[in-house]
């Protein structure tokens, strides 16, 4: 089933720029007296493609990420953490240049005032060296963390050049999930979509269905991903998948033109289609209110 954003809003029974997903489990999710759970925000930033060059696509390639960092620093509220969902850098066939780009990216985002920042690779960062340079700069490519009652799982579907998660990591995911309650709020971060969004453009994960099968018994799962450089909302069963905008160049809607190619820069609308995402997690009712920002930090 494919639904657009407006239909999704209707399905969720609410309107406006904010929508909620994973509404199940409202009554079943109850905290013990010792729970420290409370609402919080986090940010998703994605696909900054540091090192990309192409003035027809982004004449401010060297400035866009910095503007977004400044915009995040200027937000009135502070997110609890920031998650970068891959393609931190643009690919290069030169291992040295890859390390240089990763280091430059790291330098730029070190200006973020929020210090709780998590990273994961995209295929541009990790597809040619199975994640070696990424690991040197940022550590593990798949891991979990818990924050205020929500279990976050970072799934790496890019370090394997066949765009697969791989059996070893699927086994790790299975083991981790078995430690959770069926109604634990779970947010999964991936780079590529886990489902077949548009395989003709490589917008899928070869063994993504296996991950979805593992996640399906859990009633409160949301997947946030990047890779496609635009917002996209999709349901597989009760699991909502939300793609985020990128920070270098937008890509066309799935299958909307014969070939996948960056959307050219529009001088009348500079930075259009670029931005980052805020997710407000209402832990008690397991709701996520998602809002999108442009590069300058204005809600769109």
């Amino acid at each position: 089933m494919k639904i657009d954003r407006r239909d999704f809003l209707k399905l969720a029974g609410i309107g406006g720029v904010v929508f909620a997903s994973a509404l199940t489990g409202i009554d079943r999710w109850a905290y013990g007296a010792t729970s420290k759970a409370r609402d919080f925000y986090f940010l998703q930033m994605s696909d900054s493609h540091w090192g990309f060059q192409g003035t027809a696509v982004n004449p401010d390639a060297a400035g866009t990420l910095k503007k977004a960092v400044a915009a995040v620093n200027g937000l009135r509220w502070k997110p609890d953490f920031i998650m970068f969902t891959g393609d931190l850098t643009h690919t290069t066939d030169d291992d040295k240049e890859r390390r240089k780009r990763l280091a430059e990216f790291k330098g730029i985002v070190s200006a973020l005032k929020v210090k709780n920042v998590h990273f994961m690779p995209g295929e541009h960062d990790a597809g040619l060296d199975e994640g070696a340079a990424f690991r040197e700069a940022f550590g593990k490519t798949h891991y979990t963390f818990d924050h205020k009652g929500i279990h976050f799982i970072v799934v790496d579907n890019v370090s394997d050049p066949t765009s697969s998660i791989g059996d070893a990591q699927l086994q790790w995911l299975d083991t981790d999930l078995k430690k959770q309650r069926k109604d634990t709020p779970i947010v999964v971060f991936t780079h590529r979509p886990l489902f077949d969004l548009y395989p003709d453009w490589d917008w899928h994960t070869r063994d993504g269905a296996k991950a979805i099968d593992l996640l399906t018994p859990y009633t409160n799962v949301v997947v946030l991903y990047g890779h496609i450089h635009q917002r996209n909302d999709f349901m597989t069963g009760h699991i909502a998948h939300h793609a985020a905008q990128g920070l270098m160049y937008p890509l066309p809607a799935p299958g909307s033109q014969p070939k996948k190619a960056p959307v050219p820069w529009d001088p009348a609308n500079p930075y259009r289609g670029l931005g980052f995402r805020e997710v407000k997690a209402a832990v008690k009712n397991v709701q996520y209110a998602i809002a999108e920002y442009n590069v300058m930090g204005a809600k769109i």
Partner: protein
Amino acid sequence: MKIPNGALLFACAVVLLASSVVDLGGGGISLGQEEQVIKVVAKRFEYSPNTITVKIGVPVDLEFTSLDRLHGFNCPGLSIRTDIYPGKVNRLQFVPQKKGTFPFHCDNFCGSGHEGMTGTLLVTD
């Protein structure tokens, strides 16, 4: 739906073809003559040829070689794919069951030009 196994599809089609050969009587054509063998060379970041034309209903044997590194061939419209390892012939056998123009692409990330490594498979009468 699961992507059908190429080999299984091929086996089914061979059975179909064999029975139609029987229908034609003693003068039926042998499978060996019917098969379309096409060699495709992959390298960073192109296939040659990058337009492959095949006949509907006739078994196809694509023989991929790579001149440099691991590439892939994925044609979602026909639900067929294979890895293309260097140093060997990577064979993909199938029987085209529908006419049309089907794009294919490299689905093993291979470098800076990876996203432009594409081609077209034409299935004709």
